[in-house]
């Protein structure tokens, strides 16, 4: 796979991968990021994996651009055998429809489906977290069924409550904070994707898989109370490398 390096300012390097959003490119990015972290290069401050790149921020006092490039080249050479970390599958409970999902009926009508069919399709498979960005804990998910892909609203709403689960074109995702937005909102999760009060404000990571699970309003209320008390833990399973699609 073609991998290139270029500066991102005087304290960053962008590692570029083929410009296609695909699981294949994402695997390569995760493998490179994993190899890079294992290398523990002194001077690297943080790395930001995205759809088609990894951006490496570094401290020039500890490592200069040229030196970092040669270290990255070495990792690239060794990357023949793709080794991936164990992925996590995280269950996100969602109350579909109702007040928290005002566009569920519209999405069903637009595709001539029943509401139940939309929910089944949305919960039928795990979604790969390609990257996080836009806001703390906002996941860019891949793998939405085309049968429920729905264009954004023509007039974005000024405020979508944090926890809203939506569909925007071929994408699906969760708003971690109150934000303006144009996605079709089909449900709401009581889980806080971002909570500044928590020891780990954001628990999702790029490379995780996310599975939506439909819940009823009673369970929703129970989880909500437990979230407020700080007692709720999301369900996390691990997936071995050969099971990762």
């Amino acid at each position, binding site marked *: 796979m073609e991998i290139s390096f270029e500066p991102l*300012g005087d304290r960053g390097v962008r590692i570029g991968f083929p410009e296609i959003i695909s699981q294949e490119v994402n695997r390569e990015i995760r493998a490179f990021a994993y190899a890079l972290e294992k290398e523990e290069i002194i001077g690297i401050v943080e790395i930001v994996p995205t759809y088609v790149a990894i951006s490496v921020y570094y401290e020039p006092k500890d490592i200069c651009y040229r030196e970092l490039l040669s270290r990255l080249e070495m990792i690239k050479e060794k990357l023949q055998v793709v080794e991936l970390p164990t992925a996590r599958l995280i269950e996100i409970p969602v109350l579909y429809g109702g007040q928290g999902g005002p566009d569920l009926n519209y999405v069903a009508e637009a595709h001539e489906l029943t509401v139940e069919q939309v929910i089944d399709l949305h919960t039928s498979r795990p979604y790969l977290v390609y990257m996080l960005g836009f806001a703390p804990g906002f996941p860019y998910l891949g793998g939405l069924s085309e049968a429920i892909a729905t264009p954004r609203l023509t007039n974005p709403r000024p405020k979508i409550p944090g926890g809203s689960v939506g569909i925007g074109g071929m994408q699906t995702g969760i708003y971690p904070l109150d934000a303006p937005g144009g996605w079709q909102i089909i449900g709401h999760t009581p889980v806080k994707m971002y909570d500044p009060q928590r020891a780990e404000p954001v628990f999702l990571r790029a490379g995780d898989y996310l599975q939506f699970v439909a819940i009823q309003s009673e369970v929703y209320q129970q989880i909500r109370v437990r979230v407020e008390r700080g007692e709720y833990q999301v369900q996390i399973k691990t997936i071995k490398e050969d099971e990762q699609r």
Partner: protein
Amino acid sequence: MTGIRVVDPGLLTTVQDLGRIGHQREGMVVAGAMDPISLQMANILVGNPRDTASLEITLLGPKLEFTIDTVIAITGADLQPRIDGQPVPTWCGLAVKKGSILEFGGIKSGCRSYLAISGGFELAQVMGSSSTYLRGQLGGFQGRALQKGDFLPIKSPIIDPISFRPRWYFNQPVYSREKEVRVIRGPEFERFTPAGITTFYSAKYEVTSLSDRMGYRLKGPKIEKQAGSDIISDAIPFGGIQVPADGMPIILMADRQTTGGYTRIGTVISVDLPLISQSKPGDLLRFCQVSVEEAQELYLQMEKVLESLSEDRLFS
């Protein structure tokens, strides 16, 4: 408890350090001082570690009362500070008495001042930083800008305010209203036409009123592109310059989103970031290109100065 009482908060006064580093992959905004060099200088002048959280003061300064004898320093913009009615120098350590009132007369030069207090604030860190991230309502003082009646607890000064005599005086920089800003070419440089690139490096761009901690929107001649303005969402560094469909550059600053979807024409070099942060609407910017090597050389020189001043402990 000892601290600072906020009599009047000013336009936008927030607690900032060098930012929330290490969590951008979670989508966590870095925040931190818009002018990191001035913040570090303020800390050096009061004997603090360089990255200690201080107050970032924007255009119209606050009115603050000290409930302890301590040592402070004000750097960055010249907003004409006064203590108990008397003008005081900027870019120099100042002993203040318990009960003193600090206020600001108005903008003389620049946009953002930094107020460091010897010993720093007594504030809990969030994800390793005391920086205020306003949109995320996190960090700093209750995740927000200061308000009237707030009380910010401060630690005991690490310099004795009674015997304090500043060892160094630095000149207040004069922030010109027209600046040359050095940039490194960005990842989508080739998405622009040769004419577009020439425009970018020759025209003057005006800072508009749509400029804040998140980004500076500029206006001037349209920068022409070969292809579309959208890219697959990717990381944006501090000082990254995006050009959306309208062809007007936006410089992404401390509170920028971690990733964005517009073509990146370049990145402002680290030592020139203060030139942007100290700009106000109406100021003019002109861009010129430098290599990564040149930019890093300048950065290392600056770091060397800050490091040696910091080690020298600028107080008796």
